[in-house]
Structure formats: structure tokens, C-alpha cells
């Protein structure tokens, strides 16, 4: 990868990141609009979670990963601590892979 490509990716990424906060500081955002903005962040995160749980790139990630995420989800539902959710998810997936299920 060239230095030019790295610079372009870095500059473009920073532009995407800084645009929202700068726009917000210039504009007065009405409460009704703020609600939709918060909902859009929730929606984006939900979509990221769903796709990351089931897909590796554009193909199915195999059963071990969604099984781990499901275990983590059950822990979150049972209101277990955050670290338990993360470790249970990773542990389930790791054990399934160790057992040859992927």
C-alpha cells in the first residue's frame, strides 16, 4: 500500500468522523430530529451486530460464531455483567471450534 493511499484513507475517514460533531456544533438540532438521530445510531449498531454475528465478509460465518453471540445475548438478557457476556460469547465460539464445529 502506498503512502498516498494511507493518507487518503486517513483523511477521508477523519472527514467522515468529524463532519457530524462539527455540523452539530453549528446547527441547533430540534428534539424531534435528535430522536431520529439517536434512533439511527441504534439502527446502525443493530445492523452491525446482526451482520457481524452471521457473516464473514459476504458469506455465512459458520455456526460457531452465531452460537457464541447467542450465548452472549442470553447472558445480557439475564443481566449478567458485561465481562461475562463477552467472555461467554468468545468462550462458546472457541470451544465449538476446538470441538471441530465451525
Amino acid at each position, binding site marked *: 500500500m502506498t503512502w498516498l*493511499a494511507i493518507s487518503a484513507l486517513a483523511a477521508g475517514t477523519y472527514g467522515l468522523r468529524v463532519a457530524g460533531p462539527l455540523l452539530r456544533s453549528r446547527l441547533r438540532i430540534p428534539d424531534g430530529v435528535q430522536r431520529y438521530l439517536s434512533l439511527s445510531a441504534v439502527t446502525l*449498531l*443493530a445492523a452491525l451486530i446482526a451482520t457481524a454475528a452471521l457473516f464473514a465478509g459476504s458469506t455465512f460465518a459458520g455456526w460457531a460464531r452465531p452460537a457464541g*453471540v447467542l450465548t452472549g445475548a442470553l447472558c445480557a438478557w439475564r443481566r449478567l455483567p458485561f465481562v461475562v457476556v463477552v467472555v461467554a460469547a*468468545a468462550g462458546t465460539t472457541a470451544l465449538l471450534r476446538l470441538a471441530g464445529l465451525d
Partner: protein
Amino acid sequence: MAALAAACFVVGLSFGAIAVASGMPLLQVSAMSLLVFAGGAQFLAVGVTAAGGTAAAAVFAGLLLNARHLPFGLAIGDALGRRRLLGSHVMTDEAVAFALARTEPAARRTAYWLAGLTLYVVWNVATVLGALAGGAIGDPAAFGIDAAFPAGMLALLWPSLKDRTALRVAAAGAVLALVATPVLPPGLPVLVALIGLVFALPLPRFARPVEATTTEGNR
């Protein structure tokens, strides 16, 4: 936070190792992590380049994957406080999720900055260590790290989903993204999910549930 930082560390190690294996010098690998600081886009750009793609294709793919930061910044820009220029650089999915999980403004700011700065330090240290260790780094998939991220994010998102409208919109968005993932390039499916926001719009009068209008009429 420590659990996600540990997962981030392992992924950072593997990014360093993979980038060096693809032929990038250590200085470039480290510069990329310091300046781009977006794991998914970095893996993607290195992958496109290693597969023989042009620099323009690598940059475009990475930026498309990062496009979600624009709506993220609009949604949680208040959590950055006054240091917007610095705070923006450490914006990640995780920092946004941590901020969203809090409602009180000061707690949102603390959560955002703590997550953002912690992951920035961890990611950059791990990248350098991974690049130096090279092939000695194992496959992070063996540790189930790929399941840790969605599970951790879900735990953070959980309180927000108590709201019925948020749950409806999030579920619709997740389904849209899943349907789009096999057919669209990385980054776009998540943006397609925003169409799910229509489920938060107030229903037009003729489409409102009948019992709602009758109970109102009885009062």
C-alpha cells in the same frame, strides 16, 4: 470495557501480523493504525491491496466501510464535549455504543472518551506488537474473538432496545442489513439499515390501529 479492550488487543495483533505478511513495512502499518484507526477498514484496505487491487479501490472500499461514522457523529456528537476535533478521531462503533448506553450528559462524555482513548492506545500498541511478532501470532478465530464484538455491542445496546420504537426500528434495520450483505459491498448494508427508520415515523391517520382511535373516542 476491559473485556472489549482485550478483544481489541488480539485483533490488533492479528492486523499487525497480517499487514506485515502482505508486504507492508512496520512504519506504514503503524502509521495506518495511528492515522486511520478503523480496524475493519484497515483489514479491508490491506486485503484489497494484497489481492492485487488498485490503491484507489482500497481507499474507496475503506471509506465506504467507514461511512457510518457520519450518522454516528450526528447522533452522539454531544458526547464528545468541547474537544470535537480530537474526540472525532477516536470515534469507533464501541465508543458510540458505550455513549448510547448512558443517558446523563456527563456520563455519556466519560463513557465515550474512556472507550475511545482506551481502544486507541490498545489498538496501536497491539498493531506494533503484532507486526513485530509476525507469523508467531495465532488465528484470533481460535479464541472466538469474532463472537466477542457483536455480543459486547449487543449488551451495550440492550438498554436502548427497551423502547418499543427503537426495538422495531433496530429489528427492521438488522433484517435489511442481513438481506443486503450477500449482494452489496461491505459498508453499504449497514447504511441500507437506516431505511428501517421509517418504522419510527408516526402512522398516517388511516393506518392507525382501530382500537386506538375508539378508546380515544370513548374518553
